[in-house]
């Protein structure tokens, strides 16, 4: 059974510099199929930047991202827009929903844009917003809007979920529902990269935690000094 050889999303030696500040450097990670990687770390430690790099929204200063089941045949997917749009579903801080349109109109629009497969009403029921489908997004509470945005993730055909603080605004029941859905997604052979400040409650044997502070370049000024020195030389 060849296809059971697990495929891995692998980041190698990624460095992110924004402005003249090194956000993180030499960061490597592995996300095998069916597993979740939880990003921990203080505000500003680069969780969102890492996700944006994987999603191709930010360039990485250094490093590569591969996907595949074998090191020799792995595909470099850094900035490969086609691959990313087919395989990655990214939920940012912002919900990406138009306040003037109803939840259903928003979700139908993105279903057409991103070739969703799931039934919107059924998926919305799973996260508990099916009763809001015909309301304009501007009438929703922030938690309900977040649930609506999560419905888009549930419908998305991509197997790799990048969730940037998915639980912001969610109540306790919402977090539990989301956790259950994330476990379901892992069980179906998806993988998840989630940045969060709370315990999501994903099965311990399926998740790994990555602490962003391990990759911070605490002496980031050193790089600048070096550069200045080399300029002086």
């Amino acid at each position, binding site marked *: 059974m060849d296809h059971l050889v697990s495929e891995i999303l692998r980041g190698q030696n990624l460095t992110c510099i924004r402005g003249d500040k090194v956000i993180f450097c030499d960061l490597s990670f592995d996300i095998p199929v069916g597993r979740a990687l939880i990003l921990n770390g203080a505000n500003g430690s680069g969780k969102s930047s890492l996700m944006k790099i994987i999603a191709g929204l930010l360039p990485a200063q250094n490093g590569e991202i591969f996907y595949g089941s074998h090191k020799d045949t792995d595909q470099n997917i850094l900035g490969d827009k086609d691959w990313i749009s087919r395989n990655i579903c990214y939920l940012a801080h912002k919900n990406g929903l138009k306040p003037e349109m109803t939840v259903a109109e928003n979700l139908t629009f993105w279903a057409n844009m*991103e070739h969703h497969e799931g039934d919107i009403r059924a998926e919305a029921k799973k996260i508990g917003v099916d009763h809001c489908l015909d309301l304009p997004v501007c009438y929703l509470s922030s938690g309900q809007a977040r649930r609506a945005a999560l419905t888009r993730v549930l419908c998305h055909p991509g197997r790799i979920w990048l969730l940037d603080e998915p639980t912001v605004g969610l109540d306790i029941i919402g977090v539990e529902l989301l956790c259950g859905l994330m476990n379901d997604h892992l069980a179906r052979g998806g993988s998840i990269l989630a940045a969060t400040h709370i315990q999501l409650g994903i099965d311990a044997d399926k998740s790994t935690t990555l602490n962003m502070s391990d990759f911070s370049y605490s002496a980031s000024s050193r790089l600048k000094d070096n550069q200045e020195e080399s300029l002086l030389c």
Partner: protein
Amino acid sequence: MLKLALLIIARDLRLSMRHGSATTMVMGFFVMVVIMFPFAIGPEQKILERISVGVIWVAALLSCLLSLDRMFQTDYEDGSLDQFILSPVPLELVVLAKCIAHWLTTSLPLIVITPILGIMMNLPEAAFLPLILTMLLGTPALSFIGGIGASVTVTLRRGGILLSLLILPLYIPVLIFGSLAVKAAIGGYPAMEHLMLLSGFSLFSAAIAPWAAAAAIRAGLE
């Protein structure tokens, strides 16, 4: 592809209808600017007749600018722009569709009320049809070039004024050939070459705007 573009246009039209005020305000601004001129210059019919074409064209350019800065800004603010970039839809197609939607929600209503303003400005009878025709041919360029400007300033918090400074000089060819064509028609000269240059400019801007604006958006988001 075409279906996706139509969906984006339909979405923007729907947003503009729900939002309501944007199109009405642009039309109101257009009317107000044109009305200011008789007040400032006096009701002398000869003078009004002479400046009418130019005034209507300039007012249309300025009104068009009003709604430009929101073209990508709202999508940037609520995160839709990131989603567009990540979706399988080429960003160039998104830009093209949004420029067309901008034309439909801004320039087309202006063209519709132009005849009324023409009466107000004592526009010669022979100039009504040529003016509408030149506006139909020329205003797409305003939306497309404006789209480039809007994409450059999308991440700036107060990009509106910079946008005007960037874009207005590029609108000058539209203004020149638009009013020349109408004047030629009034005077009974052939206006064909002006009309062809005008439509050529619109087509040229339609051809480069999607690529230029998409590149600017990608660079701006980094």
